[in-house]
């Protein structure tokens, strides 16, 4: 069961764009399109609203709250977010006046996500190779044990993991945030093992005959041949760690290890007396969201096609 509930990259099961048989104009179809257009608008409008608000002046938002375009357009929101306004300027513009610097949080987020992604994908690939191709005793048992890990909700391990990270003296460090997911996730191991099992043994055997060791086969043959699923897994892992909030919230206390999601929460809680700094806040959310949206722009097809099931007959 554990295997069946795992969303897994299915290499394009969707037969590309075969046109559904269409009978000319049809009332039902038109209605269906209206529904889809509403869904599209609903999905995208909040992004536009972020942009529109981020580019507006805070003080003008009160009068122009129903304007669909930026009101009194300015870069002020972004300037506050990147610490380019002095305290007084920021307060005059409706900001909180505390110094904030999203470049720093951006860098922290990039570091944490990169560390988690690189470690998790590489170590999981090694383990997956051992489970798929190496011959050793108790292999299936150990793998079953790993799979059981899929059943443990991540949320349950957070509190005890925090206690552990504290004992290790890693609270408020980027390594402390990364460590629990840096070595593996059962899902990553499972996902890669599935793929490695599908690689034809003949190529490998040929390499062995040529005198290549198993280590060499792994690095020179298996990894390059699996670049597509590795990339998919890496992208998904990167997005997940970038967007994580609960765990970094527990571990990071100061700017030293604060990542974007946590910084957004802090920024929101610094609401000035006069009311929230909406344009600054929306500029900040845009800064946090944009890297993933850009990533999506480049890899949309891969990401979209990676969502599906495996293990369903």
């Amino acid at each position, binding site marked *: 069961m554990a295997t069946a509930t795992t969303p897994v990259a299915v290499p394009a099961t969707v037969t590309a764009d075969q046109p559904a048989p269409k009978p000319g104009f049809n009332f039902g179809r038109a209605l269906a399109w209206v529904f*889809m257009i509403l869904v599209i608008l609903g999905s995208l409008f909040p992004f536009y609203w972020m942009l529109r608000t981020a580019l507006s002046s805070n003080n003008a938002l009160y009068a122009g*709250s129903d304007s669909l375009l930026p009101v009194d357009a300015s870069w002020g929101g972004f300037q506050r977010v990147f610490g380019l306004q002095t305290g007084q300027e920021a307060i005059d513009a409706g900001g909180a006046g505390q110094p904030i610097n999203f470049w720093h949080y951006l860098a922290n987020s990039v570091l944490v996500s990169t560390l988690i992604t690189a470690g998790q994908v590489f170590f999981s690939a090694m383990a997956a190779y051992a489970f798929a191709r190496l011959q050793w005793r108790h292999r299936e048992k150990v793998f079953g044990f790993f799979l059981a890990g899929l059943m443990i909700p991540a949320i349950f391990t957070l509190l005890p993991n925090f206690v552990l990270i504290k004992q290790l003296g890693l609270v408020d460090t980027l390594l402390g945030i990364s460590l629990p997911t840096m070595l593996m996730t059962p899902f990553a191991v499972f996902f890669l093992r599935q793929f490695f099992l599908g690689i034809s043994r003949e190529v490998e055997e040929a390499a062995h005959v040529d005198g290549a060791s198993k280590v060499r086969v792994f690095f020179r043959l298996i990894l390059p041949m699996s670049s597509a699923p590795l990339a998919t897994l890496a992208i998904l892992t990167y997005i997940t760690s970038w967007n994580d909030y609960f765990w970094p919230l527990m571990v990071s206390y100061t700017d030293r290890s604060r990542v974007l999601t946590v910084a957004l929460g802090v920024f929101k809680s610094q609401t000035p007396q006069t009311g929230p700094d909406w344009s600054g806040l929306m500029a900040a959310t845009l800064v*946090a969201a944009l890297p993933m949206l850009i990533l999506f722009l480049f890899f949309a097809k891969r990401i979209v096609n990676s969502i599906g099931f495996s293990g369903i007959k």
Partner: protein
Amino acid sequence: MATATPELRRKPKDDTRLAILFIAPALVGFLVFMIWPTLRGIYLSFTKFNLLTPPEFNGFDNYVRMVQDPVFWNSLKVTVYYVVINIALQTALALGIAVMMQRLTKRTWLRGIVLTPYLVSNVVAALVFLWILDYQLGIGNKVLEMIGMDRIAFLADSNWVIPTIALINVWRHVGYTALLIFAGLQTIPETLYEAGRTDGASEITMFRRITLPLLRPILALVLIITVVGSFQVFDTVAVTTRGGPVDSSRVLQYYIYDMAFGRFQFGYASAMSVALLVVLIVITFLQYRLTRAEQSDLA
């Protein structure tokens, strides 16, 4: 890492040493950050622990306290209420979107757009809707006013707060759910629809007679994944309401967090975590049985 040349150790293949090397990092990660914390979490639930002094065993005290804690029961109720609204809305909408995509166009751009909200964090989603639904300035309330309705204090009114949080999370997750269902739809052979059409069945009949029954096992899996995820709601609450007004949005996970990091009662927080874990396991098991997920009508 020069292993002996293959000529020398050609005989029966046994890669135990190499295998140990290969699984070592993952195994350490698995044991140290998954298995050990799971056992430790259960152990801590039987202790009094404030993080500064070592845990003191106190038997079932935390569990007794939990059963008698009205805030715990309230948070459980709030969580279930949230899950019901969240899942009902999300599944219905996702099913609609998936079927429409199936019948209208399977193009990637459409699936891409539908998935876009999933790419941003819960925190971003929460903040955007906090702004859109703001009582004074939010465009959402402006629209309500324009169509002649009263403004709603979406996140400040105890009756609206849970449905609103549910809605925010539907926005972020519905596309992902729709794509899961969409992937399931691809397993239904097109010939069945052709046969249906030949027999003069309408789209609605085909949806009820072909799509739904054949999709059942996939829907069951989608439900298990989404319900388990939904029970763990935390981010949106932490960013928008912090459990308020009063306790009307104090979901279980937020209460646990507050107990641990606000009041440093890690023992009691762990006991509630165990309760949540048990709830999740029971739900997974029940759903699996009830929906007969293992059987497909597509023999």
